[in-house]
């Protein structure tokens, strides 16, 4: 098995079977790395460039570990997003990077569509590590991997995604993935943070969080950026917690074997309370460790690797 795509720009262009291939690949990598030897140098001699135009600690670290385990040469390139009049243009940055001849560029940028812009202007394969609030495919893949691992299935589940739906880079990729796999996806949050016509992506919207989580199998809480309060999307963090915070009381409304997820970093007492984040339903830390396996699988496939050639 291999994938036909040169780039991983998002989940939207992927077919269901391709998503499954990546998840299966990640499972093999997870098993391979379970022992003492965590090196699988399939990408030895290949240059992977981590282009982060926006701060990211966890995604970047996760990619770096994946790259190191695959034996790739790594170059970290940080730059800040430019304006039309200040700084080097993104196009010029891309052309500079292209002359360094990387095989794969992992990119994080604040602008939607920037991963496509990068891919259109460079020979290398592009792995999108978040293009603004548009897509963050490896996050959705690691979330799906974690759900499948914990729930034993990735279909027919009621999955609630709650909080800042509008600005989250995690939302759209997760919606594309989870609906493709046949789940009932319910979005919840204040109407000010739910973008118009999102029902067109085959999801339901329930602004009453208590109703939304009724019988949920999975509840995925999104990070609330504190500056959103200053923009008046909601009156206060306390009120947000009252209406949308995942508390012990709310946890009781979920199904018995349900799980609680969060892409991190979490705001304790805002979107999630400590007793839930640290409780036994929480798979938040497992998401982080699974992220490495997913990114190994994605990089391996983008480099032309075939999953069935991986040996146990």
């Amino acid at each position, binding site marked *: 098995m291999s994938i036909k795509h040169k780039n991983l720009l998002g989940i939207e262009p992927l077919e269901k079977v391709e998503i499954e291939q990546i998840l299966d690949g990640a499972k093999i990598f997870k098993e391979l790395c379970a022992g003492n030897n965590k090196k699988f140098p399939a990408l030895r001699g290949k240059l992977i460039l981590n282009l982060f135009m926006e701060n990211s600690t966890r995604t970047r670290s996760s990619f770096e570990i994946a790259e190191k385990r695959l034996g790739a040469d790594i170059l970290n390139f940080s730059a800040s997003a430019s304006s*039309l009049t200040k700084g080097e243009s*993104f196009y010029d940055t891309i052309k500079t990077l292209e002359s360094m001849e990387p095989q794969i560029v992992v990119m994080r940028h604040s602008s*939607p*569509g920037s991963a496509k812009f990068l891919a259109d202007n460079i020979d290398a394969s592009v792995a999108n590590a978040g293009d*603004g609030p548009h897509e963050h495919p490896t996050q959705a893949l690691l979330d799906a991997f974690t759900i499948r691992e914990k729930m034993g299935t990735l279909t027919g589940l009621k999955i609630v995604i709650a909080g800042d739906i509008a600005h989250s880079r995690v939302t*759209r990729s997760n919606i594309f993935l989870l609906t493709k796999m046949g789940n009932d996806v319910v979005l919840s949050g204040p109407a000010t943070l739910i*973008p*118009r016509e*999102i029902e067109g992506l085959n999801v339901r919207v329930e602004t009453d969080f208590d109703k939304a989580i009724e019988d949920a199998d999975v509840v995925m809480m999104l990070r609330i950026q504190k500056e959103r309060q200053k923009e008046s999307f909601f009156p206060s963090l306390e009120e947000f917690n009252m209406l949308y915070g995942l508390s012990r009381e709310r946890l009781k409304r979920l199904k018995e074997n349900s799980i609680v997820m969060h892409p991190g970093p979490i705001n304790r007492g805002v979107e999630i309370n400590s007793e839930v984040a640290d409780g036994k339903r929480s798979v938040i830390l497992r998401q982080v460790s699974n992220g490495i396996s997913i990114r190994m699988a994605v990089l391996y496939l983008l480099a032309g690797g075939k999953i069935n050639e991986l040996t146990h």
Partner: protein
Amino acid sequence: MNLLIKNGHVINPDSGMDKVLDILIVDGRIEKIDVNIDESTADKTIDAGNMIVAPGFVDAHAHLREPGNERAETIESGCKSAMNGGFTTVTAMPNTNPCMDNAAIVSLVREKAHRAGYAKVCPVGAVSKGRAGQELAAIGEMVHEGIVAVSDDGSPVATAELMKKALEYCQLFGIPVMEHAEEPTLTRGAVINEGFMSTKLGLKGMPTVAEDIIVSRDIILNRYVKGWLHISHLSSEYSLDMVRRAKGRGEHVTTEVTPHHLFFNDKALENFDTNFVMKPPIRIEADRLSMIEGIKDGTIDCIATDHAPHPHEYKNCEIDICAFGIIGFETAIPAILSMLYHQHDVPLKRIVECMSTNPAKIIGIKDDRLRVGAKADMTIFSTDREIVIDPEKFKSRSRNTPFRGLKLKGAPEYAIRGTRVVKCEVGNDV
């Protein structure tokens, strides 16, 4: 110089002329219009068989960028571009740098246009000093130097108070106040139309209500002061309906739509192409179809390009920081003929009204221009010639067009103004 235009189908809504005729132009003036003029009288003959001859097309909304942004366009390149696209008269919007809010800049723009000697340029002055939305600009002095309207285009007239005053003050001069209808608190940081596409792409959206609120405010004010309101680049169905009702009540409201709002819907943004980013944004299909209806039922007076040149690097960048706007002179005729004439059966006479005689009247050109004795001013185009748009043939300094590579049916052939005769070239024959 005697120029004979042979066998053209002359459509002139002003005189009602609608038949195949010959036109003889002597030293830049129309000498004769007749069924069969002897070719021996001509030094040069244009065979306009299978072509339409109309009074010169007029663009009531264009940005020529000079002074201040000559890398994008100059008055000379803009005027050449206009004629290459089939326009003989264009406006020049005042959001230049420095801003066209005083008589000196108006006179500079007209002087440069005169020296270039291509399309006629009719400047539009700013409503407010520096387009800052505070005090009225020197409107009377600018009228004296030849402005044909006022607008704070690029921004709306900032306050209801200022708009009321502008509508009142301009009555003395009989010129319209042209409004860029955009309530700015609803569009901050926004890139495309707000709706399913903006949601899917993760881009901040400009809602139609941002347009509707200003159109509504202005119609209310205009009804009260009995002025002349012209809504620029209309794009929302609800706004169109407000204009329709205002006209029905007999109020003096005119409006325009761009070729791109007639041609595209926001599905075009799927690939984050910055050449589909402009203000107002291209809207959903229902809005687009309503604009075509507005052309048919007469609610929309004219088609204006909103020609907005930008240097390459202002579009070859991330979508949420790119410059708003696209060039329009050299794609308007193919786009309009393809979409309105061929796809939606809009009669040619209606198209000529919308692109020539109606905008002419809005910018103060009252006379019939296609008559014996008048200075030659005409546009000749083909309805059935199929071309693939090729921006490398454009005369504009900029190339920011979403029509690149599109196969369109209909093409400008010649633009004639006085002794200037331009053979139009905007694409390659299929």
